[in-house]
């Protein structure tokens, strides 16, 4: 059993965080909220998301697992104005999700969860550096890097206590640095890793500009980015594997 009402805005933000990496996902329906974990087909980018029951206007379930086509569900959510409510109800018999938006009814066929790629284990990484940065600074860095290159280096200078971004293209370079003053928080440690901009651009799309993003970094190690959605009632972690030179 699953029966919930959520604002279209919250639903869209949630779906966007996942759809930047995958087309289909499994949604765990737990008593205290929903959980989604997914990795892209190349096993390079991962998202781990939870949205608590408090983020919903009303939320009732006795547990369950459903598989959804994200772009289909996003299209439906797109039919609602941002302040409208979306009513979701699972029909256990037909394995369909009934969606109602102000008189509009949509019946979404679900996907067999077993046919969706297995959910990844979250790698347990102890990363030496941590910065807390505004979403809009990530956006600036990614946009500037994209003008010159296909990849971007993210690093922390332990001695000078600053976070920096480097992008090198055929001929042009971009460098961007933020010190303690510019950041919300900084735990220094030596870190530098190179990442594909294709992935980072997609993840950036899902990071709210006003979000406080906690970014964990290492030396040629994956980056983890944590931020809140739905006024703190939802938590998202992106993890991205680096491009490395040492192998």
């Amino acid at each position, binding site marked *: 059993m699953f029966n919930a009402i959520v604002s279209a805005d919250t639903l869209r933000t949630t779906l966007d965080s996942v759809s930047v990496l995958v087309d289909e996902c499994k949604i765990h329906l737990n008593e205290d909220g929903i959980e989604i974990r997914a990795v892209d087909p190349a096993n390079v980018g991962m998202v781990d998301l939870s949205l608590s029951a408090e983020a919903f206007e009303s939320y009732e379930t006795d547990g369950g697992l459903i598989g959804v086509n994200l772009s289909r569900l996003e299209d439906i959510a797109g039919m609602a104005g941002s302040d409208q409510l979306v009513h979701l109800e699972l029909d256990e018999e037909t394995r369909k999700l009934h969606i109602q938006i102000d008189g509009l009814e949509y019946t979404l066929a679900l996907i067999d969860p077993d046919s969706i790629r297995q959910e990844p284990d979250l790698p347990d990484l102890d990363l030496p550096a941590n910065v807390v940065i505004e979403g809009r600074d990530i956006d600036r860095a990614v946009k500037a890097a994209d003008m010159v290159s296909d990849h971007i280096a993210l690093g922390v200078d332990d001695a000078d206590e600053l976070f920096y971004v480097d992008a090198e293209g055929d001929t042009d370079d971009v460098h961007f640095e933020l010190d303690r003053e510019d950041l919300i928080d900084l735990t220094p440690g030596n870190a530098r890793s190179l990442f594909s901009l294709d992935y980072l651009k997609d993840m950036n799309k899902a990071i709210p500009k006003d979000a406080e993003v906690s970014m964990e970094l290492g030396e040629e190690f994956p980056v983890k980015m944590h931020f809140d959605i739905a006024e703190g009632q939802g938590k998202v972690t992106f993890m991205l*594997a680096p*491009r*490395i030179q*040492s192998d």
Partner: protein
Amino acid sequence: MRLDEFIEDFERDEAAERRRLAKEKSYAITDHLEDVQRQLDETLQGDALFGSTAPEIFVGRTNYPRVSTGLLSPVDHEADATEFATSGAWYQQGLGIDDVLQRRTGLLNSRRSANVDVNDVWDGFVGVQREVAIADRPVDVEVGLDGKPDFDLDADSVRTPTGPSATAERADLAENPHVPRPVEKTLEDDEWQAEGAMNYLYQRGFDVYDINNILSAGALGRGENRRLVPTRWSITAVDDTVSKFIRGGLRNQASVDEVSVWTNEYVGNRYWVVLAPGQWEFEFVEMKAPESVWNPRPEGGYYMSSAYESYEGRTGYVEETAGAYYAARLGVLEHLRDRNRQAKCLVLREITNDYWAPVGVWQVREGIRHAFEGERGVAETFHGAIRQLSPHLPVTFDRLRRKSNLVAGVQTSLGDF
């Protein structure tokens, strides 16, 4: 063999000698062109009816969808028409640039303007042309020409050059063409998507050269979609389609287990192929010598271009490297298919000054296909291999790193941590 020993074996002096020879040979081409013109004038004297044997067809891309479409047939009646058609055999026979140009300038392109929409057109000039394209051996034809041929040599980076051309009034088959069973099957089934039909033919042992002719003649695909496909586009479409098919089959296979480097040199192009363990990634980097054809800015020294795809493949056309990317990728994927392994792959192409005329993208495909027949060097790591190769490349490591995604860093997966 260890990579350092492998590199020692690679002699640059030889290349310098060949460069000198190539310069001399380019004069031979000028002489040859005069011979062909004389021969053409003799063959076509008086009446304009021209009996010949056509091994392949040509479809131009100018003015699409109203294109110039033609039958290619040797001017010299005594010649074996098969030898004039582009194929992998050219590499095996060791054809040089001059040999290719000689063959191609000896082929008359009897052409007409036609609309590409050819579903069910099996009569008239276009019909004859399509019959020639689907036949598995050269076909005797009789062509009525309108006026004298234009004498020209037309080359681009993808297709094989073409020689003289003349406007055709009509064409007739002088024999019943032999069409292989699988081709008939794809032809008759007008519900079959072109991609599927191409892959079917490839699996039935047809090389991309044959499939290219068939696709170009608009003989594959769903009925309503059947169109003449300009030769240049068709070559890339076939390489791309077949490569995607092979790549799909390797997606879940294990990876190669060591870093290997192969090299090959053909018609003034030197290739280095580096395969490394990991999930599929492919990159093709070209380094064009200042004097070589197609270097747009000779004053800037070696001109670099590159194109890359990740595990998921790519969607956009590769602007910088055009058809060469697809031809090289096919050569690599065929090798990986034979081993049933996936890999990270970097192909470096150095275009030396010896490459004084473009002969078409077939030479890239064959250069890569045959690179794997040679000795290979083994290295500890991908970047170790690149550092060892670097002194033998015409550009610095730093320039290469800036141009190449793989040299900048190979993509890891989360499972590696």
